[in-house]
């Protein structure tokens, strides 16, 4: 198990380095002048040249990359271009924390719902309940989040006025904050529900068809205990991995949702940084998203490995 975790960590580290290279390459071909991007269209050419010089945008690519990596190892992603002088990390942690809160709320809502829904669909396989849950999940999962979001805003924020349409700068109470996060969270729940429910359904079906379930049933166990002790336990293993993967995506991926609801999370941070040619911010954000994603995947792997004695204890025989 220790070896396994170590190995996975090593691989994740390599992947992260590769990711940083890819992103660095992409960002190094960003068009136009950074100085122009910072100072805006009407700035004097003289000023633009000055800023370009200040930012030290010279030197060969690999040299700049190693400079960057040197900092990144100590979690110093340099100073932001757009928030001149301010360290990128100040923004990153705030945005990450906010995204994490949103992600957490989303997961708290979606996981129990989707797992229960998926398991229920599996138990009623082929019947109406299954059809309804599967179809609804599928439909929600493939409906772009901005479509769901727009509808949610129109109905619950503008129409009924139950929840804010966007996230204000400050909150008078944690309750207010929670209320503001409901709509973005729900639009994310809609997207995730289908994935997780599908996974839970497949896992449950597999466990239901497994020989050990047959053993348990033929042992004369009550159906309830068969489900609890034998089916669900094994069915949830693959679901854990999906949840973690989706959590990773939540943090960075749903920049569309964050933009739509004006939620200052890390997705929007990267998006605005990219549009504003704020390369340090963009690099920092992308690497953070990637690292968090990998960490969560790793965690999920380790967790499912730990829950799965075959991996935890190693295979005694082959």
């Amino acid at each position, binding site marked *: 198990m220790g070896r396994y975790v170590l190995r996975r960590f090593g*691989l994740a580290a*390599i*992947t*992260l380095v*590769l*990711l940083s290279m*890819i*992103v660095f390459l*992409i*960002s190094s*071909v*960003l*068009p136009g002048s950074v100085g122009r991007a910072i100072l805006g269209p009407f700035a004097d050419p003289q000023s633009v040249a000055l800023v370009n010089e200040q930012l030290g945008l010279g030197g060969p690519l690999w040299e700049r990359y190693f400079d960057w990596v040197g900092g990144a190892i100590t979690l110093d992603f340099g100073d932001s271009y757009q928030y001149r002088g301010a360290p990128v990390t100040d923004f990153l942690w705030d945005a990450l924390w906010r995204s994490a809160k949103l992600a957490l709320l989303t997961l708290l809502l979606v996981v129990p719902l989707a797992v229960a829904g998926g398991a229920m669909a599996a138990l009623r396989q082929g019947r109406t309940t299954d059809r309804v849950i599967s179809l609804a999940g*599928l*439909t929600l999962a*493939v*409906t*772009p*989040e*901005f*479509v769901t979001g*727009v*509808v949610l*805003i*129109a109905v619950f924020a*503008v129409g009924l006025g139950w929840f804010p349409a966007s996230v204000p700068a400050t909150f008078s109470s944690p309750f207010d904050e929670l209320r503001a996060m409901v709509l973005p969270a729900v639009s994310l729940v809609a997207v995730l529900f289908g994935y997780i429910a599908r996974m839970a359904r497949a896992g449950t079906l597999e466990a239901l068809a497994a020989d050990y379930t047959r053993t348990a049933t033929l042992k004369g166990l009550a159906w309830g205990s068969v489900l609890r002790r034998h089916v669900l336990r094994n069915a949830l293993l693959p679901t854990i991995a999906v949840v973690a993967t989706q959590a*990773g*995506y939540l943090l*960075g*991926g*749903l*920049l*569309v949702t964050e*933009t739509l609801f004006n939620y200052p999370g890390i*997705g929007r941070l*990267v*998006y605005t940084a*990219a*549009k504003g040619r704020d390369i340090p911010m*963009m690099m920092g954000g*992308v690497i953070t*998203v*990637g690292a968090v*994603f*990998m960490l969560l995947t790793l965690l999920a792997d380790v967790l499912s490995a730990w829950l799965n004695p075959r991996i935890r204890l190693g295979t005694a025989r082959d």
Partner: protein
Amino acid sequence: MSALVAPQAPAIDSKKTVRRELLHELLRSKAFLIGSAIVLTWVVCAIFRDFIVTFDPTDDNPFQQHRQPLTDQFLLGTDRLGRDVFSRVVGGARVILLIAPAATIIGTVLGVLLGLVMGYYRGVVDDVLGRLIEALLALPVILVALLALVSIGTGTLIVTFVIGLLFAPVIARTIRAAVLVERDLDYVRAAQLRGERGPYVMLVEILPNVVGPIIVEFTVRLGYAIFTLAGLSFLGFGSQPPSPDWGLMIAEERAVISAGIWWPSIFPAIAIASLVIGVILIADAIQAAFDR
């Protein structure tokens, strides 16, 4: 070890009947029928656009009757420039049904080749490419697409290529898994044992056996291509105005939903959702048919 395998008696099915069997399976699936009906509707819209639309989807009738609600003349109302929403929604089908399949084909071809090479050769090739793919997959596709588009600029062609390239790793991963299973089968060994070279084994021996996963993967990715392209258009990284692009239409008109002007944005939203759902329903049914 000796697990007994049922000696299926010389089955009656020939090559043709295998396909017919699959088709029958699909035609019996409600999901497939509904999905096909939806997709077909949009395909018809795309192909016969000029016979269906009542106005030129791009630029007829500006300002004459902007933001008109639904009437007999304007079936789905008009938008802020007085353009017929119905015509634009119908015209939008052509936009998406050109670029989404194109992007998916690029991704599938690349992904399949990559998956074959990785799965077949394993070893260093697989490790290196695998890490690269892992690295790319650590970020949501839409985020990477955005970075790429910001760097190299937008445009239909570029977006198509970027999405294709970004889908390749995902597809490669699936195909690789299928190839890994195949390459451990004895027929591959038998081919190697008579001195076949790598490309022959991959393309002639293995490829035909992973057609199932490829078809499934293609349809699933097609659904997500539509999804992603719409998202990019919504963020302003897709087709250029005045192209009747659904994502763009929603982005342009979403602000006025609250003013009660819902038709210019809700209809494209329904269009996107229905097309993606249609494609995914088909993908689901195909997968189920292959799994059986």
